């Protein structure tokens, strides 16, 4: 059972804990007791405290979060018709539209049964215009919404009236919200809500996190001299999950992510359980797994597919079927990570390594909403390294390790968007807006000078060359207040609000060929696929999407037309950014496992054999040791670096190493990175060079690579361009949507790249470039992590010179040739194509 086991501030005194009669009756009729943490949260709320509740799934978190509001509203009683305008009482924020809708259903049930005088409504992007208008004129008591909708409401001229009576703000799944730019935007929204309703209290609901204090601070208003934080109620509990790693007689592959070998075993597991949730890490994997399952689904079990690129209508259908227990299994990506009620799931299967211990714990929590029964989960590693990773994650889950990322410093692009939104709401005084913004914990250390630059950016782009003054979007008027220059600015803001920048995607629509063979119009919409992938298809190619094999027919008016097809070898769309890197914590665990014979003994036989073979022909590194192997293969010389720092950090390392090797005249040709290791290949004999110390490995891996080399590479990096595009869209430099015309993703991408180049050439210190570099350092490039690694391995590099590839090197070597081409490699590809032509007589020749 659950118990409240950690309360870090004294419980308020008095008899505030008496629940109103309808509540007592409702609990009594069902033979239930309010849970300790629900009463605890209520008591604190009634005493005026903001609180963070950390509890596992199934602990009645939702009711706990709403109890203070429901009790307060019950005491207030029904508002007689014709009363004066009253703003909303409680605001509930969820990271997912679906969750807001789901909560409305779950909340209305007890509200209805108790007969409480409470009106609950949701407001999402799908809410019809008429309902939105009515909500503004006659607000519900409790409004359930998303961070983007809050930003829109706050940028409205009527925000003050709408929110002035606000008592509680409830943040659901706070752990997943706060670490992203959405969380930054939301923190700024909260700061504004506090100004409109100074006495409001916050309630945060969260799964277990590494550092609760981060979230507690987030929930409280900060000021220059004190660090404030909300109270904390922690519920430990539930039965221990039963997690196992799939044991199979099949051959576990060396590399790859499909886990195809395990399909039969997985199918058996589905048959043995009532409802199974199958988690994968990427949308491509979801499509593949779904297809494989249906290939062997001889019992015709209802198995469905759910991921973020599918059409909304289709997703809603799956969600509904799931909650009504009409499905036997759902293949899903992270869209379902969060707390939607998914009916009676009795098994979670995780295909592929979970990449983080906390993520695994949250996903497994999806099984079994009943509190005292253990959740059951099976991990299915897709390759041998993943076997180790799964074992590490499993160990971590038992010892309750947490590796959620910290909240981080507030992003400047998000701040720019918010500043414009605030100008749309009402003219603002910069000093008081600064004070408001720095009360949000992610922005509490924002320097005034930076804030001024942000305002300058919002007004005219913030360029050193002041040529746009007369076109300024916001202007300071005589009264010292900044206001928007014209209504178009507000319109543009509303169209582009939010921090989720879609990578260029095209809608996929099913069409039929008519008898004359031409394409018909308007079939069903299936969802969205990245434009980059579609560009590589020619008519007649087949690909896997939405659980179907589709034939590519062409692109018409920014839609991709497809027809039903049959193929044994369809392509699978790839999605950028779909992959999570291995968490630092798990990486450390995998390194420990490699180094420790006792822990290795717990691994399956196949993996043990693989590792002991490695030990025989090369070695297994100690925990703090960096193993580097060199060997020749074909006409090339390879160097494999076992760093275990995740794909992103390895990619950055690969770029920097090739630059250095090039400078040393060793003729590097390329590199490829996985989560576990990095392979670099060259024309020159790297092994001999290192052995003879013509170039010392220690110098090659010196921390100073993070200086000039990094700077030089960053400037050329496509990764930085992608990051810049996101910052530029969020900050409002480039519109995703412009009134009247929809830009396709490709158009946004092209112009963002070109703008980046021009800006970098002429104003390298521009605010947006600073924001881009900040993002890249933590996100795409993982520079911080790389720096930590270089420090860690200093003096601990071991070089093994082999005459052929080692067992441990096989996985990364199998990845060669699978990566997309970027940067200089693009010119190689072009010259390959051009060389074809040179051999022909064409009336043209290179001079």
């Amino acid at each position, binding site marked *: 059972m659950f118990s409240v086991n950690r309360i870090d501030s004294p419980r308020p005194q008095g008899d505030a804990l008496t629940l109103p009669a309808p509540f007592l009756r409702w609990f009594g009729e069902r033979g239930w007791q309010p849970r300790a943490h629900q009463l605890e949260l209520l008591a604190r709320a009634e005493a005026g405290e903001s609180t963070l509740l950390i509890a596992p799934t199934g602990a009645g978190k939702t009711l706990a979060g709403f109890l203070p509001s429901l009790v307060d509203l019950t005491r207030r009683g029904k508002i007689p018709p014709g009363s004066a305008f009253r703003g909303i009482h409680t605001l509930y924020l969820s990271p997912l539209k679906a969750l807001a809708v789901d909560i409305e259903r779950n909340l209305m049930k007890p509200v209805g049964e108790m007969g409480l005088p409470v009106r609950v409504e949701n407001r999402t992007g799908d809410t019809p215009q008429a309902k939105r208008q009515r909500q503004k004129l006659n607000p519900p008591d409790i409004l359930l919404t998303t961070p983007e909708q809050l930003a829109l409401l706050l940028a409205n001229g009527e925000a003050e009236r709408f929110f002035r009576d606000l008592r509680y703000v409830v943040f659901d799944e706070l752990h997943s919200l706060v670490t992203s730019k959405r969380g930054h935007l939301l923190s700024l929204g909260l700061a504004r809500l506090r100004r409109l309703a100074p006495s409001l209290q916050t309630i945060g609901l969260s799964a277990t996190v590494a550092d609760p204090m981060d979230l507690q601070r987030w929930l409280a208003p900060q000021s220059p001299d004190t660090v404030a934080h909300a109270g904390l109620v922690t519920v430990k509990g539930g039965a221990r999950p039963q997690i196992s790693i799939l044991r199979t007689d099949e051959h576990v592959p060396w590399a790859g992510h499909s886990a195809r070998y395990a399909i039969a075993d997985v199918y058996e597991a589905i048959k043995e359980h009532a409802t199974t949730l199958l988690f994968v890490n990427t949308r491509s994997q979801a499509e593949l797994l779904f297809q494989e399952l249906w290939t062997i689904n001889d019992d015709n079990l209802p198995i469905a597919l759910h991921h973020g690129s599918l059409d909304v209508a289709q997703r809603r259908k799956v969600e509904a079927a799931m909650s009504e227990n009409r499905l036997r299994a759902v293949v899903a990506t992270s869209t379902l990570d969060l707390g939607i009620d998914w009916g009676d799931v009795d098994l979670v299967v995780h295909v592929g390594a979970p990449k983080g211990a906390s993520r695994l714990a949250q996903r497994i929590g999806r099984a079994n909403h009943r509190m005292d029964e253990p959740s059951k989960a099976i991990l299915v590693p897709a390759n041998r390294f993943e076997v180790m990773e799964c074992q590490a994650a499993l160990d971590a889950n038992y010892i309750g390790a947490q590796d959620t990322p910290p909240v981080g410093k507030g992003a400047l692009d998000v701040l720019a968007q918010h500043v414009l939104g605030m100008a749309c709401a009402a003219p603002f005084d910069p000093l008081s807006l600064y004070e408001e913004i720095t009360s949000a914990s992610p922005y509490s250390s924002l320097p005034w000078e930076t804030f001024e630059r942000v305002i300058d*950016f919002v007004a*005219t*782009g*913030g*360029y050193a*060359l002041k*040529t*746009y003054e007369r*076109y300024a*979007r916001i202007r300071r008027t005589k009264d010292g207040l900044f206001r928007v220059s*014209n209504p*178009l*600015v507000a319109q*543009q803001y509303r169209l582009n609000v939010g921090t989720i920048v879609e990578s260029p995607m095209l809608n996929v629509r099913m069409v039929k060929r008519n008898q004359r063979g031409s394409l018909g119009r308007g079939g069903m919409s299936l969802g969205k696929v990245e434009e*980059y992938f579609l*560009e*590589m298809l*020619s008519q007649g190619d087949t690909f896997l999407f939405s659980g179907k094999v589709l034939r590519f027919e062409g692109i018409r008016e920014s839609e991709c037309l497809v027809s039903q097809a049959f193929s044994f070898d369809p392509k699978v769309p790839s999605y950028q950014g779909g992959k999570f890197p291995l968490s630092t914590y798990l990486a450390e665990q995998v390194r420990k496992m490699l180094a420790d014979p006792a822990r290795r003994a717990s691994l399956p036989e196949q993996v043990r054999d693989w590792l002991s073979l490695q030990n025989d022909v090369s070695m297994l590194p100690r925990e703090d040791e960096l193993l580097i192997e060199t060997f020749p293969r074909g006409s090339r010389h390879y160097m494999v670096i076992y760093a275990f720092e995740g794909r992103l950090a390895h990619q950055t390392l690969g770029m920097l190493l090739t630059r250095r090797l090039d400078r040393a005249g060793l003729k590097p040709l390329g590199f490829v990175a996985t989560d576990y290791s990095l392979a670099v290949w060259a024309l020159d004999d790297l092994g001999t060079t290192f052995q003879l110390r013509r170039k010392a490995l220690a110098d090659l891996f010196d921390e100073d690579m993070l200086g000039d080399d990094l700077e030089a590479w960053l400037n050329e990096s496509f990764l930085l361009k992608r990051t810049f595009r996101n910052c530029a869209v969020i900050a409002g*430099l*480039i*519109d995703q949507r412009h009134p009247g015309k929809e830009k396709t993703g490709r*158009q946004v991408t*092209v*112009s963002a790249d*070109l*703008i980046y*180049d*021009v*800006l970098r*050439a*002429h*104003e390298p210190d*521009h605010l947006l470039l600073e924001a881009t570099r900040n993002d890249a350092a933590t996100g795409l490039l993982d520079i911080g992590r790389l720096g930590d690694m270089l420090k860690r391995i200093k003096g601990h590099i071991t070089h093994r010179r082999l005459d052929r590839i080692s067992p441990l090197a096989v996985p990364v070597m199998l990845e060669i*040739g699978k990566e*997309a*081409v970027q940067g*200089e490699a*693009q*010119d190689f*590809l*072009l*010259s*390959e*194509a*051009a060389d*074809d*032509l*040179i051999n*022909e007589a*064409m*009336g*043209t*020749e*290179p*001079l």
Partner: protein
Amino acid sequence: MYRLAQALSAPADSTVVSARAIVHGVEAICDPLGSLYLPETRTLVVSDLHLEKGAAFARRGMMLPPYDTLATLRVLEAAITRHDPKLVISLGDNFHDRVGSVALPETFRHMIAAMAMGREWIWINGNHDPDGACGLPGISLDEFQHAGLIFRHEPSRGDAAGEIAGHLHPAATVIRREKSVRRACFATDGKRMLMPAFGVTTGGLDLRHRAMTGLFDRARLVAHMLGRDRIYSVRFTNLIA
């Protein structure tokens, strides 16, 4: 932005690889800076400069960097220095909007005047700037016949023999081993030529796009793609291996 880097670093011309094409019997050199040079008549052709694009967006509330004009003019300077032409033809969409040439800052006017010193200059009118170039050296025309070729902004749908046009911003995509690279290109089938857009913040339209259909004999069409410091010439039918 290889072109800007190229223009700023001014590499030794020996390291730059251009491509030679014959359009309607006239020799034409495709330069990786994005300009076309006709050696017989010492004519330099550029297209779709889209000068003052940043300013045009700023007028509509999007504060793009105000540096695009300078960057484009730098590349143009480099191209002019490289070939020292007698005549420069700018094939339309010279400015991103009608206001562009009127509101052009003085510094840029001086840059253009310096470039035009000692040579003829023809501004072909485009759909973005149909009113001609205001207060700049040279003359504005809708189209221009010269050296056995005809220069206009929009490619005509009819007989195209000897036509040099812009407007469509042609780009080609090479696909090898399921990987793709896309670059702006000169496109010619020996009869007519479409010029790549020269402005540094201009996007591209794929040769396979519908707007391109019917313009070329695809069997003879070659895309001269702009690379880092050379032109890559790829036959249209060979773009996708």
